[in-house]
């Protein structure tokens, strides 16, 4: 006989009635338990959103060319041309 103290701890998650309906029918459709479906779906969604976040950051980083002027322009929320038109930024301490 197994004892309850060896069973992994389970956590209840509250969802809306519509969400529960979707999870229930999805679990039937995929022949999975509701628990396994929710865990797999969350991991899948987080990975997808992580890809999205990384892509967004890569896009922002691609606007930076290693120059100080590119960083100052991004921080100021202006284009490089706008920054140059009002004086530009020193590159003197650049040593990356």
């Amino acid at each position, binding site marked *: 006989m197994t004892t309850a103290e060896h069973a992994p701890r389970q956590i209840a998650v509250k969802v809306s009635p519509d969400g529960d309906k979707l999870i229930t029918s999805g679990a039937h459709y995929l022949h999975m338990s509701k628990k396994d479906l929710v865990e797999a779906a969350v991991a899948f969604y987080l990975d997808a959103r992580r890809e999205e976040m*990384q892509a*967004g950051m890569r896009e922002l980083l691609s606007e930076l060319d290693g120059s100080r002027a590119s*960083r*100052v322009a991004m921080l100021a929320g202006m284009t490089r041309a706008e920054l140059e038109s009002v004086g530009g930024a020193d590159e003197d301490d650049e040593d990356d």
Partner: protein
Amino acid sequence: MARQVRPTLRCLREDLGLPVPRADVPLDEIPHPLLAKAAERFADGQAGHERIRAIDDQVLFKVKIQRWRGAVWVDDDLAWLVAAGQREDGSPEDFYAALAARSNAARARYNAERTPPLASTAYSGYLLPGHEDDLRWRAEAAARTERRFRTTVRNLVRQSLLDGHEHAVMLEGAALGIQVLADQGHETYVAIRIIGSVPRRLVAIILSLIPGCQADAWMSDYAMPERAVAPEEQIWSNIMDPAAAAKLLDEQP
């Protein structure tokens, strides 16, 4: 409250005949006798000033030193030198008379082009700080922020390289922690932890300041091996070029 006095970019270029310095030099620190005099006169918000009476659409004040004459417009805690010129021999007030004449002509042009017409006799709005002055103000603030970010990030990386622990500071209202783990299977691993609501462009700047990391190799993590990510916490990681790490350690902090 002590006021700064800045020239508008138009005044700096056209009236004072000075080049626009890099954004690392605040315009209120440009060495010029008229700006120094204006800073002295307008530093105290309570001091009395002589108004330019011929300009009736804005309140402009006189500032004078040696042969230089200027017009100062006060905006809350900031004063702007909006026009400047030199007195010519035998005509002590000619700068202000010329300014009034230009402003009257500007008023005539304004009324010819726009409705409703101005009821004032002068129009000096074109002298006041505008879009490019706002850009310059933002550029100076960004240059200061970038320098602070750069010093902070490099110090944190250097400290973590020395002991392998996370080092953290508060920066722009957020907690920034950096941990560098050298010798991770012959690789140097760097993790950036930011807690707080931070605009994405600030995160990009921080990541870009970590030396020796490929820009397209940053990974975002939603969980740590030993714990969950806290609310408003974001974690980014990358592999650092050991040569860049060694170079940073050789630099003077």
